[in-house]
């Protein structure tokens, strides 16, 4: 296969970017970079590529999807990039031709701009070919630097500013999904800010990122910019094999500031000949601990500069005994399994017990201290006792659920290793399903079961994993079916999203106090009140998992649940955690969003630390900051599953600026979207869903208004443009995606359970998972470039280029993939050629194909293998336990599924929800002041 290096015009190089799995093209003379192959002395645009010729019906028919106005965005004369299925695998020489149609486009675009001064919004009279989206000028760098320089001159901004703000016009630049994978704006610290010249001094953005990568020096500057200041933190995330693990400081020498308790980090200063260090937050001079320069393993003087805490933004310390309130406790898992009629019939009990059984080896138990208990419940509680040395478990039934007691003081909470020694635990897990297989009792005493589990583990703490298929109906925490289709879509709907019974909040507080965390796995096909039940995980740092209408008879359902449940069990558990964020003087953490309990003004209690969970913390500027940079440090003290007390410290430093343009230029759209998602959900609970949507929309309008009035020449007057910084270009479409997300969307059809689950996801997902959840990824598979779906030069799979989320991209003969990290839709066009259906689904024609949840067969042809590889990669590429379902969606298939898949295309108009074009023009109206603002 021809590599892009060989096809480049002179003066260009191509560099493989592992993080994005595509080539980055660099113009060596200027340092200009772009994702698209550069224009150059390549063959002229050729309309007669074999690919285009092979699809004669294509041009005429796709107009049926495209609304007239959308053409302006993507070019009226879009050239086909189609590579039909019936084609033989492309020859190496063909590849450059795939890129040819738009090769000359960037230059054309620049010429148009210089000629007219302002790019036309839509000019049908333009006879010449508009730039094709894929090969067009949507590069990270604005294509016309000269025009910009003029604008900058007017604003009095020089190019020598640390951050140069580049303005984009939202009306003429359609969103490019690839920009979401770009790193956040660079953090440009002043020279000598760090004590060691390490590239890891600032924690990676996947651990901690800020909505602004240059902090305003006063709160008035911050409020002037209208951009909310917040940290988006994922302190614990899975570290993949080809990543560097978090460095560990094992010698228990922990240098902390005497006054503000900051941990030593790369941004401190050593003074007094290295005997003292000056805290980077409060400027207090502290003594360097005596053992700081001593290598305890070799018992000789060590090199201070090799200590990881001075060179890494993310480190983990092994804490000495002063950091323990009590000796490290063993990990405890208590499983509460619903064995009522519905649960057994759906196959949940069988799948769950089998998954526990299969994953017993993966449950963290290095030092053989892990304890485990299984309690089953319907309207009574069933305890299982396994005295040491016995292999037959005894079942103890407690049918008094009003006043829960433990039937036996011992042998209910089993030591995992001991219980497995004689196969007793395996025996128990194998038999549970048989014991209850004819259970015809309907009802659920979930509240009492939770209390029983709590009683069992209260002296130790640990994790309760509750699996339930029905609405709790008896005992404390009993809930009523309050689903009422009449109030959906009205102001009263937010009431359905709040906890119905105070039990779930008070019990959550009790759990948090006793260091107990609750994970909920919910399976009901009927109303289950996810909103109330998800309160428990929310305040005890657990997670809710929801499998609506779970039926283990469908292999896909069982596979998804077993995979996710298994991952949860195998996750390294971290107990008794507290988290605190410290910041430089003048900054204060003002409000906290995420799954934890706020124990004091700045202390977050987490009974167990959930891996891959995101938190958003709003920051307030309380006094003028005079320092050249600020430091924010997140510290989590926790006990690992093998009984070691540890502290994870995540430090990031940000420069301080007094210029509004730098504030704008450093804004991180991804972090902003995460924060706004969290705030929207919170507001929808305390107010109305509509208020939440309005608040998010108004925030966006405010930001754009301020940007226009202070950063562009238009000032306060009306403008034909809708200007926004290049780094915030995706914010409007992310906000649109958020407003159209199931958790927030205006609709009278969304069941409250689905909404509540979606809201639980919106407040707990880390940025990496949240962004696709609000702005899904959309690939076209039938005409993907030949290297997509194959293993690239660096050993990772090459993904097809993501498309903008509009149904205009759907072709009638095509195969498309839409995924949001939770679900994958495989869209099959109604004119799909039989060969394609044959190649992918092993079925003779489109008519025989059935929509719905499927597992794709792996067939003996390269296309099937590539599609399977892409789906596999989609499921694995993000951190977290989620294993998305694959749905085959036929273009003329069942309407609910089709509409569901189409609702992922957030740039389209749907019902009352605006399309991206409408959204942007309503934004423009509001920004120009025509909207009554």
């Amino acid at each position, binding site marked *: 296969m021809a590599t892009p290096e060989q096809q480049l015009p002179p003066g260009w190089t191509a560099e493989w970017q592992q993080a994005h799995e595509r080539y980055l093209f660099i113009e060596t003379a200027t340092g200009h970079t772009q994702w698209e192959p550069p224009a150059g002395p390549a063959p002229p645009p050729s309309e007669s590529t074999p690919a285009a010729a092979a699809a004669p019906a294509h041009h005429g028919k796709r107009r049926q999807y495209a609304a007239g106005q959308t053409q302006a965005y993507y070019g009226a004369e879009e050239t086909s990039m189609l590579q039909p299925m019936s084609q033989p695998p492309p020859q190496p020489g063909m590849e450059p031709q795939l890129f040819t149609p738009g090769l000359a486009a960037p230059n054309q675009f620049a010429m148009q701009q210089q000629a007219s001064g302002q790019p036309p919004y839509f000019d049908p009279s333009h006879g010449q070919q508009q730039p094709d989206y894929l090969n067009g000028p949507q590069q990270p760098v604005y294509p016309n630097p000269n025009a910009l320089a003029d604008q900058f001159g007017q604003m009095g901004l020089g190019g020598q500013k640390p951050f140069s703000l580049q303005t984009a016009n939202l009306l003429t630049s359609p969103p490019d999904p690839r920009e979401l994978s770009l790193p956040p704006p660079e953090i440009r610290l002043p020279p000598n800010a760090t004590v060691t010249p390490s590239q890891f001094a600032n924690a990676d953005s996947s651990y901690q990122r800020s909505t602004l990568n240059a902090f305003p020096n006063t709160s008035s500057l911050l409020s002037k910019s209208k951009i909310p200041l917040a940290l988006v933190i994922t302190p614990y995330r899975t570290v993949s094999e080809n990543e560097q693990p978090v460095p560990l400081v094992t010698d228990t020498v922990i240098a902390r500031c005497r006054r503000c308790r900051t941990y030593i980090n790369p941004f401190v200063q050593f003074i007094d000949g290295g005997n003292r260090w000056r805290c980077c937050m409060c400027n207090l001079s502290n003594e360097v601990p005596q053992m700081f320069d001593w290598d305890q393993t070799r018992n000789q003087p060590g090199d201070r500069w090799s200590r990881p805490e001075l060179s890494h933004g993310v480190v983990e310390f092994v804490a000495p005994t002063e950091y323990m309130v009590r000796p490290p406790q063993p990990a405890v898992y208590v499983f509460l399994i619903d064995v009522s009629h519905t649960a057994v019939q759906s196959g949940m009990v069988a799948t769950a017990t089998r998954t526990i059984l299969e994953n017993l080896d993966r449950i963290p138990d290095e030092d053989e201290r892990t304890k485990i208990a299984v309690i089953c419940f319907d309207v009574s509680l069933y305890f299982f006792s396994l005295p040491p040395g016995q292999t037959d478990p005894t079942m103890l039934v407690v049918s008094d659920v009003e006043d829960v007691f433990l039937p036996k003081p011992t042998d209910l909470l089993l030591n995992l290793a001991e219980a497995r020694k004689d196969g007793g635990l395996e025996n128990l897990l194998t038999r549970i399903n048989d014991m209850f297989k004819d259970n015809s009792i309907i009802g659920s005493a979930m509240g009492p079961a939770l209390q029983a589990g709590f009683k069992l583990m209260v002296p130790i703490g640990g994790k309760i994993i509750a699996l339930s298929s029905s609405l709790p109906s008896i005992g404390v925490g009993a809930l009523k079916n309050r689903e009422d289709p009449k109030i959906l879509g009205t102001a009263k709907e937010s009431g359905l999203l709040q906890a119905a019974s105070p039990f779930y909040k008070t019990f*959550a507080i009790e759990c948090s106090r006793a260091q107990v965390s609750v994970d909920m796995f919910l399976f009901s096909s009927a109303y289950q009140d996810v909103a109330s039940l998800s309160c428990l995980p929310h305040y005890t740092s657990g997670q809710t998992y929801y499998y609506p209408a779970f039926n283990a008879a469908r292999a896909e359902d069982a596979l998804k649940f077993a995979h996710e449940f298994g991952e949860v069990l195998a996750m390294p558990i971290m107990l008794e955690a507290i988290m605190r964020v410290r910041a430089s003087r003048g900054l204060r953490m003002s409000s906290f969003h995420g799954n934890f309990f*706020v124990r*004091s*003004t700045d202390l977050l209690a987490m009974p167990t630390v959930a891996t891959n969970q995101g938190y958003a913390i709003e920051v307030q500027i309380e006094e003028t900051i005079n320092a050249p940079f600020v430091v924010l440090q997140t510290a989590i003290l926790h006990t690992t599953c093998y009984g070691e007390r540890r502290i994870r410290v995540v430090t990031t430093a940000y420069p301080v600026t007094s210029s509004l343009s730098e504030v704008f230029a450093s804004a991180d759209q991804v972090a902003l979207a995460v924060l706004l998602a969290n705030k929207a959900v919170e507001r929808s609970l305390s107010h109305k869903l509509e208020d939440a949507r309005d608040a998010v929309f108004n925030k966006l309008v405010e930001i754009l208004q301020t940007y226009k009035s202070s950063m562009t020449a238009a000032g306060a007057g009306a403008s034909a443009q809708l200007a926004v910084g290049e780094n915030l270009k995706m914010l409007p479409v992310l906000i649109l995606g958020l407003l159209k997300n199931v958790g927030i969307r205006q609709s009278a059809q969304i069941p409250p359970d689905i909404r509540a689950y979606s809201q639980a996801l919106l407040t707990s997902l880390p940025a990496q998972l949240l962004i696709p959840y609000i702005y899904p990824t959309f690939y076209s598979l039938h005409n993907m470039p030949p290297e997509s779906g194959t293993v690239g030069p660096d050993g990772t799979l090459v993904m097809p280029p993501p498309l903008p989320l509009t149904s205009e991209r759907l072709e009638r003969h095509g195969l498309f993939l839409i995924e949001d990290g939770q679900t994958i839709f495989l869209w099959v066009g109604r004119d799909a050629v039989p060969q394609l259906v044959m190649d992918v689904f092993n079925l003779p024609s489109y008519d025989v194909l059935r929509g719905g949840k499927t597992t794709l067969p792996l067939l003996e042809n390269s296309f099937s293998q590539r599609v399977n590889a892409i789906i596999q990669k989609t499921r694995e590429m993000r951190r977290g336990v989620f294993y998305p379902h694959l749905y085959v969606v036929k273009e003329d298939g069942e309407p609910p599924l089709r509409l569901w898949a189409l609702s992922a295309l957030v740039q389209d108009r749907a019902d009352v929800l605006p399309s991206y074009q409408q959204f942007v023009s309503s934004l423009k109206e509001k920004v120009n002041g025509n909207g009554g603002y």
Partner: protein
Amino acid sequence: MTLAWCLTGWLFLFAVLMAAALLFCMVFFIIMFSDLECDYINPIDLCNKLNQFVLPENIAHAFLTILFLISGQWTAFILNAPLLLFNANKIRNKNHMYDATEIFRTLPGHKKESFFKLGFYLLSFFYYLYRMIVALIAESE
């Protein structure tokens, strides 16, 4: 005539004492809130403590207001009616209790409410005192 005036005097004497008690109650609330802000108390203990006083405080105020109503003290009743309705509405919506999980988010609102009530009880304390003295003077004449 004398009997009615005598009753009014006693009523306002009682009201003065009640207002003083409510005043102290509010001072206690505000001290607890600032303790929470300074991290001297954790939100769970705070809510457990304060929630014991929420209903007694509301009932005491409602009792006083109803006493004014049945004794025909219209001015005093009308002054107290808005707060009575406000409290009743909170109880009806079941958000009169302090929620430990949300306390830091709602703290500014709670503090504002407590300060407002503090001012109100202070003013009504002096008003009742004035009315009591007026009633006593009228009686002695």
